[in-house]
């Protein structure tokens, strides 16, 4: 029932927001809806940690990995909503947007969240596809939110590239249905029934299907070379949505790939899918690190960081074994830290009115709390000790060095390059001389608290993993 409660609450809130004429009420309803989603997600997570699976109806099923991503969506979504309220108020005060835009934002945000929750819980691959496509449709207008030519261009690229990718993913999805001789009850084929029949899948069809799925959903994840929409979309969308695209949508699409990987592995063994994930993962890390070095826009920098981390995750699941534990943790850390970075970069944008790295000078003097948050985010995301991502990257690489030393050394080299490239921009933005004409001081405390909460969660999780979460991660290791 919990999942239905989440979905119904979000849908009703989206519907109500579309008609409410008072901004305060829209904000209040959204906070309530996302609180409900967070609370119910925790309840579901506890249930899954005990029983291994949550499936209240035939249409919904969540396993351990699904519920981890569900928690991420709920947590980042809730914090993003709190941040969005103040962020949009500041933009309204500056005359960048009006009430209609704010209303549109919260309607689309609720629809986007609904689509993500449904994608993650759908017990049928085609349903999962439908809802992932729905995330594209709900976010397209959030990317073109500011109605500038560059935003329209970014949204168009996003719509076209993702639609093509998802159609190819759909074709791959359909091919997996060749393993089931007839459709199940009411024509419903669940992930479980596909897994049970996966051994009947023709090996060559399994290979072709996985390639299509990896290209299709990999587009949504942002794996190279299907990543081209990502820097454009991330740089043009409002910052809280950037946090959700990177922190929540990326794992949602990734999880679908992993579910299909399971089916493929059952049909032809793990070698094929692992090799593909390693290739795409390494390519993503390499390309992102090279482009990040000469980046001119800090929001695009965050997009390339997401591509790099998607590559790390692909590499981790490609290596398999012990790396899966580390990769699952990496997925959690990355989602949370991207929230910190997108929110603090939103504060920079509000202060400097520019997303160009060259226009941000002396930020540490101008917005000290925001700067500390952004720098902490940089240290975490690039894998500096003692934060969790350092350990996850090291663990993935230590597994990799036994399986494929050349790829692992290459990955390590490019990860180092990411750190150097990022550091170069950080130095220029935060440790330089501040402009004379800029007013010193943070915008509002509610622009600081949301990223601060996420940062505290990451630091805690770097040193202590709650038992229920540990159970879930161990369960992921045994199933993926």
């Amino acid at each position, binding site marked *: 029932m919990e999942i239905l409660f989440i979905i119904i609450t979000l849908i009703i809130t989206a519907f109500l927001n579309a008609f409410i004429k008072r901004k305060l009420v829209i904000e209040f309803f959204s906070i309530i809806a996302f609180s409900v989603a967070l609370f119910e997600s925790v309840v579901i997570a506890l249930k899954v940690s005990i029983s291994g699976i949550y499936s209240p109806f035939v249409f919904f099923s969540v396993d351990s990995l699904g519920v981890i991503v569900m928690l991420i969506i709920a947590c980042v979504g809730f914090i993003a909503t709190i941040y969005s309220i103040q962020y949009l108020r500041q933009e309204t005060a500056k005359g960048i947007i009006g009430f209609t835009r704010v209303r549109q934002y919260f309607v689309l945000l609720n629809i986007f969240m609904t689509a993500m929750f449904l994608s993650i819980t759908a017990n049928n691959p085609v349903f999962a596809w439908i809802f992932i496509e729905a995330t594209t449709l709900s976010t*397209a207008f959030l990317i073109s939110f500011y109605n500038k*030519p560059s935003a329209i261009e970014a949204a*168009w690229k996003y719509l076209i590239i993702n639609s093509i990718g998802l159609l190819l993913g759909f074709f791959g999805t359909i091919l997996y249905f060749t393993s089931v001789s007839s*459709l199940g009850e009411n024509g419903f084929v669940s992930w479980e029934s596909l897994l049970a029949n996966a051994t009947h899948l023709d090996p060559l069809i399994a290979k*072709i299907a996985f390639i299509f799925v990896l290209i299709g959903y990999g587009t949504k994840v942002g794996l190279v070379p299907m990543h081209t929409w990502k820097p454009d979309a991330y740089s043009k969308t409002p910052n809280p949505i950037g946090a959700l695209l990177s922190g929540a949508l990326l794992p949602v699409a990734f999880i679908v790939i992993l579910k299909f990987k399971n089916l493929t592995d059952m049909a032809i063994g793990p070698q094929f899918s692992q090799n593909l994930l390693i290739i795409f993962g390494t390519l993503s890390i390499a390309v992102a690190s090279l482009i990040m070095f000469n980046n001119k826009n800090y929001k695009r920098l965050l997009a390339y960081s997401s591509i790099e981390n998607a590559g790390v995750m692909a590499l981790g699941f490609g290596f398999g074994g012990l790396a899966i534990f580390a990769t699952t943790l990496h997925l959690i850390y990355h989602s949370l830290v991207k929230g910190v970075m997108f929110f603090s970069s939103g504060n920079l944008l509000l202060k400097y009115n520019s997303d160009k790295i060259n226009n941000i000078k002396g930020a540490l003097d101008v917005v000290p709390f925001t700067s500390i948050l952004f720098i902490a985010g940089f240290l975490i995301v690039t894998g500096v000790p003692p934060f969790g991502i350092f350990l996850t990257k090291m663990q993935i690489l230590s597994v990799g060095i036994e399986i494929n030393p050349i790829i692992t050394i290459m990955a390590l080299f490019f990860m180092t390059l990411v750190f150097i490239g990022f550091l170069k921009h950080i130095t220029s933005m935060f440790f330089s001389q501040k402009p004379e004409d800029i007013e010193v001081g943070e915008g509002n405390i509610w622009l600081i608290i949301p990223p601060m909460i996420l940062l505290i969660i990451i630091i805690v999780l770097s040193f202590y993993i709650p038992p229920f979460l540990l159970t879930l991660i161990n369960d992921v290791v045994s199933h993926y």
Partner: protein
Amino acid sequence: MNILNLQFLLEIVFGTIIFLHITKKNFEAALSYGLQSLMISVMLFSSFFETSNVSLLFIALLVFIVKVILAPVFFIKLIRQHALMFSVSTYLNTPLTLIIIATLTFFAHSPKFAPLTGIIQANQALLSLALASMFLSLFLIINRKGALSQIIGILSLENSIVAFTIFAGLEQSLMLQFGIMFNIFIWLIIAIIFISMIYRYFGTLNVTTMNNLKD
């Protein structure tokens, strides 16, 4: 419906995609997509007559309403609203485009794709043609500079996948088909809104003019 009739319908689908590559007028492209979708809905209607499965009839009707009527009507309204009579050019010239079309068609019929086209042995030729239609639709999206052509290319790709699923016996249940059609309908509306926005902001549907975003 016998296999020859089905083959004829699929050949029309394939032909419409080639026509989409060649035509220079948006109005003709919209009509061509309508014709292509009509063939898909006829295939679904024929499946209904063969199996007496009422859900297939419902799906066929849904396809007919959304793809054969609504989509072309939306496109034609858009073309008239913005006087977009002529589509913008292609990246490759016509002879080169035709050479690539031939190559892709040959490629789809090659033994490399035998596992896909052999899902149902009796339909191997049809599956190869559906696969070729998919490749050509993808090429259409890549080769065309016009936003409207790109949208039609994506919808054509979706039609080709539907044709493939019909001949591979992989049609989905009514509920899933309804979900897919609903998605496509919403996608269509959003894409058309974006086309209007592109025209308003850039004064053309030529996507090569959209070059604000670079690293």
